[in-house]
């Protein structure tokens, strides 16, 4: 923070780092060894991966439960098994990857990928779907256990 001619200027030390504009690319690089670990070790077996906090505390599945196990299957090329663990996160994965790429390109080189305007009704629909998924994957009556990880 510097005060000059009666006006206050804030200087962020992080944002003034020369590598700051490449922060998303660096984050992506940091994710690679994590993905290698998820590839090498099966999160479905007891070991180094922590259980979901929500599941630990309540014994119920959250909408994200099964994502790590699904990711492990996806990295091994088993698309069907991946969707079996968590269809929601597998469907969200391409969207998250695209948004991440967009963030990386726009912060590093100012290039924006086309981002369509999402109709609000679609977002309300997503909200309803997520809440329904959260509840239904915990119903122990067939066919709902199909949704459970």
């Amino acid at each position, binding site marked *: 923070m510097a005060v000059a001619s009666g006006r206050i200027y804030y200087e962020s030390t992080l944002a003034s780092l020369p590598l700051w504009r490449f922060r998303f690319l660096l984050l992506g690089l940091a994710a690679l060894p994590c993905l290698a670990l998820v590839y090498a070790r099966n999160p479905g077996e007891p*070991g180094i*991966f*922590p*259980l979901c906090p929500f599941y*630990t505390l309540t014994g119920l599945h*959250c909408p994200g439960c099964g994502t790590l196990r699904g990711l492990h299957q996806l990295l091994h090329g088993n698309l069907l098994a991946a969707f079996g663990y968590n269809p929601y996160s597998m469907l*969200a994965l391409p969207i998250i990857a695209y948004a991440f790429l967009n963030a990386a390109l726009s912060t590093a080189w100012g290039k924006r990928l086309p981002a369509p*305007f999402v109709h609000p009704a679609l977002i309300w629909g997503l*909200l309803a779907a997520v809440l329904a998924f959260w509840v239904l994957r915990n119903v122990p009556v067939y066919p709902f256990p199909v949704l459970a990880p």
Partner: protein
Amino acid sequence: MAYFDDPQPVFCTTCGRESDPDARFCDNCGAALDPQSEGPQYAPGMPYQGDPGYGELPHIPNYLVQAILATICCCVPAGVVAIVYAAQVNGKVAAGDYVTAQRYSNNAKTWCWVALGLGIVAAIIGIAANVASGSLGGF
């Protein structure tokens, strides 16, 4: 923001001090303020130079992807709240109410950070609980 007709601050060309948008003389040194500094001046017959925000919707982030990510791996309840705000951002943008959309956008952003914070706390508690119950072994 070029989308709202906010009065732009006027800077004195003599001393650099900012003055009121409608001031004609500098508060600090008394020099006459340059009317050209208030923005582009249009006159009949001049070629149209383009409006900075014309023809496109203002980009008001709805943080939908961050909210989705929060429902998967951070904190589900806070992520759900962020999705509600994301829907309201796009609803207000579609209706042309950019001021309210910006407010909902700020709320969506706040809830994404809340989700991340609570997610980190929950992860620490979760790992501690896993270690305590022995379900988290070594390599």
